[in-house]
């Protein structure tokens, strides 16, 4: 089921689209930069998940079906840590979600680490996919992503194609890339501001207290944006963090290869159900 929420964000009215399926404790899914909540569509149709969880995925403003706020045409979009945290907490509050599990990928995985630092009491557990306190950039000029003489959607899609594991089925590989091709102008680049400029958490990641909120980190072996070593280095600094390196998966596990990803996700969700405080 999909519908809209009216949320004040940064003091401006926003209309945020989200979808949900299932019943149980809330599981809020956070999509990658430049994409949208459709990346989680396979979780929402997986009965092994929806019979225990209320799965929710919103489209960030400017992504998917969530329009930009009025006045966007005169702004250069830049996602900030503060705005991203505000969005997640406002979404949760508006729906009255009781200590959801947050599962985020890439920028969504990065913000999960921020949530662990800033608001662990608000979450039942946190799951970071393709997440690390820091990752070495693999391109140094993001202006390519938004210029008049290169189709931004085609380029973002082509760049992201390399982060998908070769084992991904053709259908879900190209579906993942379609979402990138649909991104609005400058949106992916604006998201990366958070990921690349504000997203260095190395000075504080060791303050995460997994006793207050369990933290799971899962990274695909073919991800060269957030590499397994990046996630290993982060997990090593967080006592109690649970690390999984996922074989045959890349940077978009939930959308590039849903069948393989669920073999890694289901045990994590079962463990959270069994151990997280109600």
């Amino acid at each position, binding site marked *: 089921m999909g519908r809209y929420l009216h949320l004040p964000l940064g003091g401006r009215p926003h209309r945020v689209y989200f979808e949900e399926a299932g019943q149980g404790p809330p599981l809020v899914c956070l999509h990658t930069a430049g994409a949208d909540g459709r990346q989680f569509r396979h979780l929402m149709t997986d009965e092994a998940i929806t019979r225990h969880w209320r799965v929710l995925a919103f489209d960030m403003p400017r992504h998917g079906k969530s329009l930009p706020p009025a006045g966007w045409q005169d702004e250069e979009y830049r996602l900030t840590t503060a705005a991203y945290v505000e969005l997640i907490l406002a979404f949760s509050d508006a729906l009255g979600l009781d200590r959801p599990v947050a599962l985020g990928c890439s920028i969504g995985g990065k913000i999960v680490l921020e949530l662990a630092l800033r608001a662990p009491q608000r979450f039942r557990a946190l799951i970071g996919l393709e997440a690390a306190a820091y990752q070495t950039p*693999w391109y140094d000029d993001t202006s390519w992503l938004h210029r008049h*003489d*290169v189709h931004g959607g085609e*380029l973002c899609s082509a760049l992201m*194609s*390399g982060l998908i594991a070769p084992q991904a089925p053709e259908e879900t590989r190209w579906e993942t890339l379609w979402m990138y091709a649909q991104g609005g102008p400058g949106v992916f680049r604006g998201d990366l501001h958070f990921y690349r400029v504000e997203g260095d958490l190395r000075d504080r990641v060791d303050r995460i207290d997994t006793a207050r909120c369990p933290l799971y980190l899962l990274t695909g072996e*073919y991800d*060269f944006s957030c590499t397994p070593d990046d996630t290993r280095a982060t997990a090593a600094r967080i006592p109690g963090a649970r690390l999984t390196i996922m074989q045959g998966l890349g940077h978009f596990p939930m959308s590039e290869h849903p069948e393989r990803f669920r073999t890694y996700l289901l045990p994590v969700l079962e463990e959270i159900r069994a151990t997280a405080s109600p």
Partner: protein
Amino acid sequence: MGYDAAVSPPQPEAIVARLPELVNADAGLVRRGQGLTTTFLLAVGDTEYLVHVAGGRLAPVERGPFLLRSWTFAVRAPGDAWARFWTPLPEPGYHDLFAMKKLGVARVEGDLWPLMAHLRYLKDVLAAPRRAPASG
């Protein structure tokens, strides 16, 4: 899962010579590249090749050495890296041009505009041997 040199090692230079045949036989790929006409340099170790693209189709690849030839951009990697890249199931780090760049084994030089504006097509051209039956 990686390339095992003991078992039918791919021959990068033979693979490069087959690029036009592989690309031109793939109608979807040719269509995706129909807006591109350029010449780029592909280096396999010390051996340089000029790859001529005309409206998404490839002309025969020229093998160097070259003395006074122009190209827009160059993609360079050692032969071993290309061999790993061209295996049907490449290992992590060798599965994508930008992965090899981050790994430090591939370099991209020159005018990057044609590459970036036609990245989907050019990545698929470079990876075409991966999808082809072994030969040579």
